[in-house]
C-alpha cells in the first residue's frame, strides 16, 4: 500500500517533469491521463470478471457533450460535470439491462450499444457533421480565457488532479464491501445472493461509476484535442481501452495510468520511428506483455517488490 502511494507520487512528479521538459509530450500525457481515467472504469468491471468491448461509447458521450455544449456554455468547470452526468445517466439506463448478462454476452452487448452510438453520430449528419466531426468551441476556465500555452497546462493539471481523485476513489471503492462483492461476481455469483447481496445491483453500481469515469475521460479528450469525431466511439477505440487495461494490469488503480502512459508513448515513438509499421510494434508490445507479463506493467513492478 505504502509503495503504491509512493509510486503514484513519483509517477505524478515524473509526469509533471516530463510535461515541463518536453512541451509536445504534455499533450500526449494529457490524453494518456484522460484515457487512464476511462480505463479505471474497465478495471472495475474486470474485477467482476466482465470485459466491456464498448466502453468507448462513454468516452464519446463525454466528448460530444462537451462539443455540443461548448458553444452555449464555455465554462470547463461546468462542462466536465455535465459530461460526467450525461455518461453516468446513459450508463444507468443501459446498465439496468446490461447487468443481467455476463461474460461474452455482456461484452458483445456493450459493443452493440457502442456501435449504435457510433452509427448515430455518423448518420445524424445535420446534427453531428458526420465523420468530419465537430470543432470544440473556445473554452473558459473559472471565467478566464487563457492563451494556448497556459490552457494546455490547465487541462493537463485538471486531468492529473482528476486522475488522482478517481484513482483514490477506485482504490477505496475496491476496498469497500461493495468493491469486494465485485470479486464475488467473478468467482461465484450464487454465493453473493445467498449472503443477501444482490449481484446485479453491485454490478450496476460499478457500471454506472465506470460510465461516469468514461464520460470524464471523454470530456478531457475533447478539451485537449478540441475536435471530436465519431471515431472515438468506434470499436477500435474500445479495443484500445481494453488493450490499455491489459497493458497496465488490473492489480491496482495505478495500472490504468501506467498502461495508458505506456500505450501513448509506445504509439507515438513507434509512429515517429517507423510511420508505416507502428501497428506492428504496438501489437508486438501487447504480445510480449501477454506472454511474459500477464499482470501488465503493474504486475512487473509489484513482482519486483516482492522479490
Amino acid at each position, binding site marked *: 500500500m505504502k*509503495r503504491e502511494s*509512493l*509510486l503514484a507520487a*513519483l*509517477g505524478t512528479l*515524473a509526469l509533471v*517533469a*516530463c510535461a515541463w*521538459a*518536453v*512541451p*509536445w*509530450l504534455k*499533450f*500526449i500525457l494529457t*490524453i494518456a491521463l484522460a484515457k487512464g481515467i476511462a480505463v479505471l472504469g474497465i478495471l472495475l468491471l474486470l474485477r467482476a470478471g466482465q470485459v466491456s468491448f464498448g466502453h468507448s461509447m462513454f468516452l464519446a458521450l463525454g466528448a460530444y457533450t462537451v462539443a455540443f455544449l461548448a458553444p452555449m456554455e464555455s465554462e470547463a468547470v461546468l462542462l466536465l460535470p455535465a459530461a460526467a452526468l450525461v455518461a453516468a445517466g446513459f450508463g444507468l439506463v443501459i446498465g439496468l439491462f446490461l447487468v443481467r448478462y455476463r461474460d461474452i454476452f455482456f461484452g458483445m452487448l456493450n459493443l452493440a450499444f457502442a456501435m449504435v452510438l457510433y452509427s448515430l453520430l*455518423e*448518420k445524424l*449528419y445535420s446534427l453531428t*457533421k*458526420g*465523420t*468530419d*466531426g465537430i*470543432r470544440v468551441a473556445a473554452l473558459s476556465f473559472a471565467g478566464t480565457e487563457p492563451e*494556448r500555452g497556459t490552457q494546455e497546462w490547465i487541462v493537463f493539471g485538471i486531468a492529473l488532479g482528476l486522475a488522482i481523485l478517481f484513482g483514490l476513489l477506485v482504490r477505496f471503492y475496491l476496498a469497500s464491501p461493495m468493491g469486494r462483492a465485485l470479486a464475488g461476481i467473478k468467482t461465484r455469483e450464487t454465493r453473493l445472493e445467498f449472503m443477501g447481496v444482490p449481484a446485479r445491483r453491485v454490478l450496476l453500481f460499478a457500471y454506472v461509476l465506470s460510465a461516469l469515469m468514461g464520460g470524464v475521460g471523454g470530456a478531457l*479528450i475533447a478539451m*485537449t*484535442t*478540441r*475536435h*471530436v*469525431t465519431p*471515431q*472515438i466511439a468506434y470499436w477500435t*477505440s474500445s479495443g484500445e481501452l481494453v488493450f490499455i487495461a491489459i497493458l497496465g494490469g488490473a492489480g491496482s488503480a495505478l495500472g490504468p495510468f501506467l498502461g495508458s502512459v505506456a500505450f*501513448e508513448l509506445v*504509439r*507515438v515513438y513507434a*509512429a*515517429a520511428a517507423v*510511420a*508505416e509499421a*507502428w*501497428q506492428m510494434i504496438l501489437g508486438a508490445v501487447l504480445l510480449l506483455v501477454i506472454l511474459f507479463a500477464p499482470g501488465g506493467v503493474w504486475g512487473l513492478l509489484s513482482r*519486483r*517488490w516482492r522479490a
Partner: protein
Amino acid sequence: MTDAVTRRAAMLGAGATAGSLLFAGSGAKAQGKPSELRVGITTFLSGSASVFGVPAKQAAELLFEEVNKAGGIGGVPVRPIFVDEAPGTDHLVGEFRRLVQNEGVQLIFASISSGSCLACTPLSDEMKKTTVLWDCGTQRIFEEGQHPYAFRTQGYGTPEVLAPLLYLLKHKPDFRTLAVINQDYAWGRDSWELWKSAMDVLKPGVRVVAEMFPRFGATDYSTEVTRLLAARPDVILSTSWGGDLVTLLRQAAERRLFDRSTFVLPVCEPSLPTLGRTMAAGHIIGTRGDHWNNHPSPKDPARLKRFVDAYRAKYNDYPIYPCHHMAQAISATQAAYAKAIAAKGGGWPNDAELAAAFRGLTFDTPTSSITLREDGQGLEDQIVGISSFNAQYPFAVPKDMILFPAAMVSTPVGRKSVDWLKSLTPDFLNQIPAPIAG
C-alpha cells in the same frame, strides 16, 4: 526494502532526465538558414484510404529527391517526415505538435481526410505554423473561419462536384431521373448536398429515384444494384472512391448496369487502373483537378511526361491524383520559399514571412498554374470527360474533355458553398467552355 525504492526512484529520475535531454533543444530554431528544411507530411499509411496515402508518399519521396539533387529549396536540403493519419484525431493532433515542437518542421502538409484537416487547421492558427492542406476536400475549412497560416494548394468539394454536374447538363441535357449511391460518411453526404443544391436550380424537376448511402467499406452492393436496375434512373451519381468504388463498379458491370444508366463518377480516376477494361466506355469521369495522363494541352508537357515517367519507372504504376496533389503542394512550397527569400533579400523567412509568401501565391503545375486566393483556397482547374479506351493506356481515360476554369466553378470568397450553388441560375450553363481538343 529501502534500497529497492531508491533504485526505482533513481531509475525514474534517470529516465526523466534522459528523456528531457533527448527532446529538449531540438525544437529551437535559429533565425539563419537551417541545415535542413523539414516538412511534416500527414497522410494515410494504413487503412482503406492508404490507396491514396501511399502513392502520395511515394510521389513526395520521388519529388523531394529531385529537389535535393537540384540543390534543395533556397539551397537547403529538404527532409520529409511522414505521419500516419489513420489512428484518428487525438493521435494526429498530438503528432502535429510533435512535428512542430520536437522535429522543428518548417511547414506541414496536412491530410487526406477532411476530418483531419478540420482538426489541424485551428492548430496551425494557434501554433503559427504554415500548413499546406494538400489533399482534403471539405468546403468547411475556409467557409467557416479564417486561417491565416493554412493554404489549400488544390481544389475542393464544390468545384469537384459542380464541374461534373455541368458536364452532365451539357452532355446529356434531357435526363429526367437520377439516383445517388455514395459512401456513408461526411464526403458522401456533403457531395450529395452540393450536387443537389446546384442541380435543383440548374435543372429543376429532376426526379431523384434513389438515395443510397451504403456503409463505408462495404463489400457487397447487390441490394443497391438490384434497386438501381429496378428504378432505371437515367443517371447514377457516385462520389465514392478507392476500394468501395472498384467493388461497386465491378458488381454493377457484372449486372449490366452500365448499359442502362449513365454513371457520373467525380472521384474515379485513381480506381481506373485497377478496374482496367471492367470500366465501361461512355460514362462521365473526374479526377479532382485537371491532371489526366492524357491531358491534351498541358502547360508544361515535358514536365508532366517527366513526372509520369519517373513515377512509373520507380513504382511501376501510373501516378494518380493524390500524387499530383502532392506535387502541387511541393511546387507551391518551392514557389513560396523563392518569393519569401526574394522579399527578404536572400534571408531565410520566419513562420510569418513564409505564410505571407503563400498568400496570393501563383505557382506552376505540369498541367496549369494555380493561384491561392486571399482566403487561402487554391484555384485548380477541373477537367471532366467521357470514359473511353485507346491503345496507349490499359485502362479508361477521358475523351471530349471540358476544362472548367477554377474561378468559374469555385464558391466566391466569403460565401458558403450551398448558398452560392442555390443562387445559380440556368444561365450559368452558357458559361460552360467548349470541349478541348483531344
